[in-house]
């Protein structure tokens, strides 16, 4: 599979689109989890409808 990827036409644009997508989505998930960890200790479990 690595050979297929390396031999692709316009590999920079194609791999770039996958890399940017991965970076944005990882960044978004990380931001959501960071806010969650910052706010969660300030609220008791009884007030969290998901617990």
């Amino acid at each position: 599979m690595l050979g297929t990827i390396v031999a692709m036409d316009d590999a920079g644009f194609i791999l770039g689109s996958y890399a940017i997508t991965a970076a944005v989505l990882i960044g978004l998930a990380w931001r959501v989890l960071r806010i969650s960890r910052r706010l969660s200790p300030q609220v008791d479990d009884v007030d969290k409808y998901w617990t």
Partner: protein
Amino acid sequence: MTTTVPTPQQAASTSAGTGTRATRALGIAAIVMLGWTAAFGLGFSPADRDQRDAVRILYVHVPTVWVAYLAFIITALCSAIYLFTKRHSLGFDRVAGASAEVGVAFMALTLITGALWGRITWGVYWQWDARLTTTALLFVSSIGYLAVRGLGGSHHQRAKRSAVIGLLMVLEIPLVHWSVRMWRSLHQDASVLDPSGDVTMDGLMLFSLFVGVIAFTLLYIWLVLHRSRTLALADLIEDRGLDQAVASRRAEAGVN
């Protein structure tokens, strides 16, 4: 906003975050499916007869726009439920807000991956083409929605204002989707079905696209669940801060 710093006892009595067993399972499923999307998109699926390897961008471009549409439709749906039901539940407002935030990110990815694909096939990153322009308009509208949510006021003021914008924003989706048929467009027509409704894609290409759509949809659900819960936490903390501020003012003034 006034926030209180938890004591070690308080911190110990609370769970680590907004996750549950179900969201953890969902997150793992999303990661696995995203891995398969990359494997199928970059490796297993064949190159296209006309577009050659550039078609591989399709496996991230189409799922991102699908999730962006889904996110804005959920935002509109939850906005309508908030506005037109007697309870005016803020839970729906939070899901609407969380979904719009995620939708903005996916819409941005649609524009970026589309620009990279355009550079390969058209030779330019951007054209003021009907599909691209209407997509950019939807993206700007969604940022406007988030800006309106960030304005001051009570939770219900925020919810009412943003619900109206959310309902207006969703009206742009048919315009974006049908723009390639309504106007002459550089952008290709529907990727999966031709105008008569027949599937026009190769089996493995269609399967790769399907894997991408499932992966991104799972990730969307995971993000919205966590984000709506953090919005609920933020509202709770803000309410408690207000209550404490009112109580301290009353105490200063000697009012019971």
